Each structure stands twice: as structure tokens, then as C-alpha cells.
């Protein structure tokens, strides 16, 4: 199990001339599952994208093991840092094996083609996501949940120590959401992969995260283990939502129960 330090130092970031993140300092706990939560438009996705080098910060820096990720060779960085964005493109007519295999890009070069290690990594990723039987199938033929498993397998084939995922459960029904989060937990347990993701569902976040980051208006307002930081006050501040926090009987983690105007 490889440990890394991953930190942001006073990052400022945004799109075009609009600054969304302002002076964010954080440190991602190694070999754990971190989840970023926050209301729509709060900047959580921008934070993830800036950490995953999709957006270059206008100020501050993102450091992996003390070195700026923007000063590292992209392919070397891609061996440590993987990323699954929210809406990747599926090329028409691509098979599952082909797509998962493309995750091996940073480990290959023009001179040396596919090595035994590459094939093993792909086979292992397919196996872990339970999609070996679909390997020859066209992605177009698969269900939403199966497709998301294929994408995660692609990120797995990359064999990185750190994996960023931008809302990996969006558009999936509850069964598949739980399935995907279970699979990511397997990954974390088996290889010690540091996982950082943005999620919408607070209760699932509280259940699956070792560590939570709460973002509001482009700033970090709370961080820590879910049991330590989730309170009705924090949810009110983050989401402008009145709620009660009770104990999740299944996982013994905080469970929020929204109140609303018609039920008190």
C-alpha cells in the first residue's frame, strides 16, 4: 500500500474570469475515501476538477508528495492520479474490453505496445467490476449501471494510487448507487486506493466516506469524519435545509431527515 500526500495550497480557481474557489487549503487523507459535499453551484465540482488537473488554478498550487502537479510530466502523473469525469464520451461501436484497455495509456509507449502487465491489469479490472462476461459486448447494449462499472473499470485499469470521481452515481437508481459505492469501497480496502469523489446524496456520503469535505460559496466550511462533523446546524449552513440528524441503524453513521414546510 503506497501512501501519498496530496494537498491544495491557497488555490484560487474558476472558469474564464469568474473565480469560484477562493483560497482553499486542504489535505486529502491517504488511503481513505474522501467525499466532497455541498449545494448545487457551491464549487465542489470545480474543487475536484482543480485537484484532478482539469482546471489550472489561477492562484495557489496543488501538490502531490510536495510537488506541483502542473510541473509533473502528464504521463508520470497519470500513473499515480486517475480521474473519472461526470460525462465521458462513449465512441460509437466500442467494446467493453477496448474501452477498459484505453485506461492503460499512461503505462504504454509507441515503441512497446501491449505488455503482459497491461493485459493482466485489464483482466483484473474487468473481474473486479464483474463485467468480464461483457468484455466483447458493445457498450451501447449495456444498462446504465453496467456502463458505469465499465467506466470505473477503465479508471481501475490505470492502476493509480489516487482516484478522483465526479458524481459517479448520478443518473443511477438507488440499487446501482449502492452497488457502485460498494465496489469503490472494495477497491479502497483491497488496494488502499485513495478515493476522492463528489456526491449529491448526503446520507450515502456519510455512510461511505471516511472523511468529508463540506463546501459553500467556494470555500471549505467543515471537514472531518462524518460522525464528527454532521450536525443539523452544518446541514442548515451548507444546504439551507432544516433537518434532524439521527443514527443510521445499518451503518451507525449520521442520517439526515429533512423537515420541509409541511411536516414538522
Amino acid at each position, binding site marked *: 500500500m503506497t501512501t501519498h500526500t496530496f494537498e491544495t495550497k491557497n488555490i484560487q480557481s474558476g472558469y474564464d474570469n469568474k473565480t469560484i474557489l477562493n483560497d482553499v487549503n486542504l489535505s486529502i487523507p491517504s488511503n481513505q475515501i474522501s467525499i466532497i459535499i455541498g449545494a448545487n453551484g457551491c464549487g465542489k465540482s470545480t474543487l475536484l*476538477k482543480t485537484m*484532478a*488537473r*482539469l482546471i489550472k488554478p489561477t492562484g495557489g498550487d496543488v501538490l502531490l508528495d510536495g510537488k506541483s502537479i502542473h510541473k509533473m*510530466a*502528464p*504521463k*508520470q*502523473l*497519470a*500513473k499515480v*492520479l*486517475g*480521474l*473519472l*469525469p461526470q*460525462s*465521458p*464520451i*462513449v*465512441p*460509437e*461501436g*466500442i*467494446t467493453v*474490453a*477496448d*474501452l477498459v*484497455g*484505453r*485506461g492503460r*495509456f*499512461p503505462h*504504454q509507449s*509507441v515503441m512497446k505496445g*501491449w505488455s*503482459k502487465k*497491461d*493485459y*493482466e491489469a*485489464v*483482466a483484473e479490472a*474487468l*473481474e473486479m467490476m464483474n463485467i*468480464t462476461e461483457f*468484455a*466483447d459486448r458493445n457498450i451501447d447494449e449495456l444498462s446504465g449501471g453496467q456502463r458505469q462499472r465499465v467506466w470505473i473499470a*477503465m*479508471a481501475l485499469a*490505470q492502476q493509480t494510487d489516487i482516484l*478522483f470521481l465526479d458524481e459517479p452515481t448520478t443518473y443511477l437508481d438507488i440499487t446501482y448507487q449502492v452497488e457502485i459505492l460498494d465496489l469503490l469501497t472494495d477497491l479502497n480496502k483491497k488496494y488502499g486506493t485513495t478515493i476522492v469523489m463528489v456526491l449529491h446524496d448526503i446520507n450515502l456520503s456519510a455512510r461511505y466516506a471516511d472523511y468529508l469535505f463540506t463546501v459553500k460559496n467556494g470555500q471549505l466550511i467543515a471537514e472531518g469524519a462524518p460522525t464528527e462533523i454532521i450536525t443539523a446546524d452544518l446541514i442548515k449552513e451548507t444546504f439551507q435545509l432544516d433537518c434532524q440528524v439521527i443514527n443510521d441503524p445499518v451503518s451507525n453513521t449520521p442520517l439526515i431527515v429533512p423537515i420541509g414546510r409541511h411536516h414538522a
Partner: protein
Amino acid sequence: MGNIIEKGHKQRLLPKHLAKVVALLLILLIVSILMSLAFGSRTIGLEGLIDGLFHPSVEGHEASVVRQRIARTIFGLICGAALGVSGALMQSVTRNPIADPSILGVNTGASLFVVCGIAFLSIQSPSGYIWLAIIGAMLTAVFVFGIGSMGASGATPLKLILAGAATTAILSSLVTAILIPRTNVMDQFRFWQVGSVGAANWDSVHIFIPFFIVGLLIAIIVAPGLNALALGDEVATGLGVRTGVIRMLAAFAGVLLCGAATALAGPIGFIGLLATHLVRLVVGPDVRFLIPLAALAGAIILLISDVCGRFLGSPGELEVGILTAFIGAPILILITMKAKMRTI
């Protein structure tokens, strides 16, 4: 585990029917080469073919006709291959199924520069206009993509077609405006403009080869990066691809190949589109296989179109550019309809 690895191995190395497809394309290529050598205003029998190709001591008329057709055939082969690879590259760079040098107006841009070269700089030789054609092709490519990418939805197939068509209209009217008052230029240009391999000789082959090799090498080098780019810019960045560099190199190689082909043979349309689509239909979207196979398919399509032109235009010849347009245009319509259905 061993079993799965073995299975994964095969899946990666053999996209569907790779071996069969390669064999079929190679056979077709040999057949089309032989047809190109044998058929024309004078049809040569098997014996004449063998004499012309393998027995340099045999002098007869038939053998010498075959030898005269060798340069034209080799040129057609390289030209078709270059256009096939160019189409595959342009489609990958733009993630757009209709990208092809002729549809995007790149050929017309090359034409305009060649005409200017003939009219204003008195350039006479193909080695002179090859650079002009390449520069014209590059500027037009940048222009059309610039216009086609304006607006919120980016470079959609329909916008690119429109931008390409509008650009083609403007550039061809400029070409006409320059040509009409200059009858001497018109004569030199007229033949070039239709797209023909009939005038090709060993010189054309020698000028073309370095451009072809450079373009093809770049294409092979960027293929894995293009595979990653096909999954979207964000995924590609995550995989460590320098997206800007890969896209620029691939576009450069694509325009280089089609610019060189256009300079030497005139604008021959639709080969890149046809070759890439046919190949992708059979072996899937992996660019590493798409590029060499589109080269083979492009060469076959061009050679066969050229041979057909010799029959259809008899006693003269119908230029290959006219034939590829006849075959290509209906296919473009089919593809556009399919692409539109997908977005709806």
C-alpha cells in the same frame, strides 16, 4: 486468472474480424493494382502483365504499356492511402463522423493557393505547388473549424458541413475570379482541378513519398492518444494525454497528407470519408487499427475508381475525382442522416 488474461489478450489484439479484414483488403489491393496495370485504352492480357513486370528484357508493345502504367498505379496507391489516413485523422481529431478534406473545404483552399501560385508567381512544377497547396489546406482547415466551433454546442457535424460548404463556395468563386481573365492559367489549372492521377509520373511519386511517410509516421505515433481523446478531453487529460499537442499533431498530419495529395493529383473527394467509415464498420473505433486499414481501403477505392473511369470515359478517361464524388456524395447523406438521428 490465466484464462481471463488469455481472453483479454485476444480481445485487445483482434478487434472482431481483424485477420480476415486484413487478408481481404490485401487481396483487393493486389487485384486493384493488377487491374490498374492491365486496363485502359489498351487492355493487356496476363502474359503481357507478367512480361512487363517481371521480364525487363522483353521489349514488346504490351510490356511497355504496362511499364508506363506502373508509376500511375503506384502514385494512385499512395494518393488513396494518404487520403484514407487523412480522413481517419480528421474524424478522430474532430470526433466527427463527416470530417473529410473535401467536405470541410480543405481541398478548395489548397486549390485557391495553387491557382494563385500559377497566376501570380508563375509556378509551373508540382514540387512548387505542393507547398502552396499544403499552406492553403492548413489555413482553410483552421478557418472552417474556427467558424464551425462558434456557438454553444461546439463543432457539431451539421455546423461543420455548413461552414465547409460556405467556405468552399467563397473559395471556389475566388478561384474562378482569378482564372477567368487568364486563359493560359486556365488551361494549366483545368486539368489539375478535376482530380486525376492520369498525369502522374515517377516525379510525382518521388515528390509525394516524403510527405506520405512523415504524415503516416505522425499518424501512427498519435493513434493511442487519439484513442484516449475519443473518450472526451477530461478522460484524456486524466490518462496523461497532452490533448492540445496530440490534436495539433494529428490535424497537421491529416492536412499534410491531403494537401500533398491535392497538390499532385488535384482535389479528389470523399476517399477519406468512405475508407474510414467502411473500416470502422467492420473493425470498430480503435484508431491504431483504423489508420493502417483506412490507408489500404483508401488505396483500393482510388485505384478501382481510376480503373472504372478509364472504361466509363472511353475512348478518353473520366477523372477519378468525378467518380469518387459520385460514389461518395450519397454515402455522406446516409451518414449525416444517421448522425442526426443519434443526436435527436
